[in-house]
């Protein structure tokens, strides 16, 4: 009886697909609405400071842009420290102009400590 069970289980398992995928050659698709890296549409930002206010980890700071862009963007804009961020997306939800969004990018590890800080920059510079 035990052997029959084994043969039955074996034949079933040999025909079924594995539960895992061969990362990085294939990956499970990341769904819409995933809380990954932030993306700022600086042209729509009204500098309301709500994202910095709601951030539970105080990872967002409103800063001025470098001198060369100050004429076009005179207000303060969110600088996000991804090292402090807990990816809760409260900043995205509270944004009245929907200019701060979270993307599906999850590959955020970097050997450069300065690389974790996302400075606000105009689109053409990025």
């Amino acid at each position, binding site marked *: 009886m035990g052997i029959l069970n084994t043969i039955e289980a074996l034949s079933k398992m040999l025909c079924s697909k594995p539960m895992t995928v061969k990362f990085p050659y294939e990956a499970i698709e990341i769904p819409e609405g995933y809380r990954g890296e932030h993306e700022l549409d600086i042209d729509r930002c009204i500098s309301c400071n709500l994202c910095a*206010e709601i951030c539970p980890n105080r990872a967002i700071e409103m800063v001025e842009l470098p001198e060369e862009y100050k004429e076009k963007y005179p207000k303060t804009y969110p600088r996000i420290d991804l090292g402090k961020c807990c*990816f809760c997306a409260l900043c995205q939800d509270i944004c009245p102009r929907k200019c701060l969004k*979270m993307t599906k990018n999850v590959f955020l590890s970097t050997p450069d400590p300065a690389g974790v800080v996302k400075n606000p920059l105009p689109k053409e510079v990025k």
Partner: protein
Amino acid sequence: MNEKELITIEHIEPIMPEDTDYNFYFGPAHSGSGNFGVKLRLEGEMVKSARADPGYLHRGFEKLMEYRVPMQNAVLSDRICVFEALNWNLVHAEAVDELTGVEVPQRARYIRVLMAELSRLQSHLIWYGVMSLGLGFDTGFKVAFGYRDYILDLFELITGGRVYPAGYICPGGVRRDLPDGSENKIRRVLDQIEEMTHKMQDFDNIAFSKRMKGVGILKTEDAIRLGATGPVLRACGVKTDVRKDDPYEIYNELDFDIPVREEGDAYARYLIMGSEMEESIKIIKQVLERIPKGKVREPAKITPPSRVKLPEGEVYVRNEIARGEGCAYMRSVGGKEPYRVKIRGPDFLHMIPVLEHLLKGVQIADIPAIYWSLNICPADMDR
């Protein structure tokens, strides 16, 4: 020590060392214990006494919550117990809702129960996994964690994160509605989890059950005296469940049973886990059939922290989470942050008095079976 005693000691001939006791440490850097230790005094292979050694995962949520508004605290409440983040979300959200008196939309109530039960299912799969690992049954561990990932895929789709939902169940409802087509996906995952419960019954072989039958017997009176709740108490013959005794959300409208066993041993706790998973599947199916349309949050937009005001008062809520009774006490003096939050997790009592009581007089090989059969979580205990 006086002179007389000294003389008598000198006259004893050391024929053989009578004291064969020694100290033994289970954890805190043990692969099978989590961030938690137990100091054991052993005589040969038998445990003479056990002393829990907690405090390795204390993060101070109760204090942190005093400096944040409820919406930020909802995000923080994920971290109380990693294994069942959504259940803790619900405990926190209910406390705030009761304090503010917000009428939660009906659809949000259904989604809350749906997510809490999915969270219970994945938590019980972790329980099965680590219990198998503790007993040396590696296949069970891998299979259980594989099936748990199907539920995590659902969490990723609905909440935007696999393990941490970031306060998905928040004060006033839930943070976002179920995405299109998610109901079918949930049904598909439920079929897969049902397949897993059948597998668990198939895996129930002699090697697995003999390690647990008659091991770590907790008597009913001891369980009540030491403060056990949830599946641990139900395995001792006490029919209790907050979902039935003190219904919250929409549990009073749902039809489900409370599994109870009389034996009180590790095997009974394991059987309770299997039955509870089946009941959870039953609940989720009912929720999917009845879920109404409508709003998911009241108010729909997040209030900026500077405009938040909590009414004065104090509340105490209790929920049936996967490990037992999860409670929260919240007091407000009219500011934007709560004045005091006290979190009562089920594992503090399961991991300190109950575990110390059960480990007395057992064989060293039975420690993992007893330890994991209590469905413990060091994160929830230390908070």
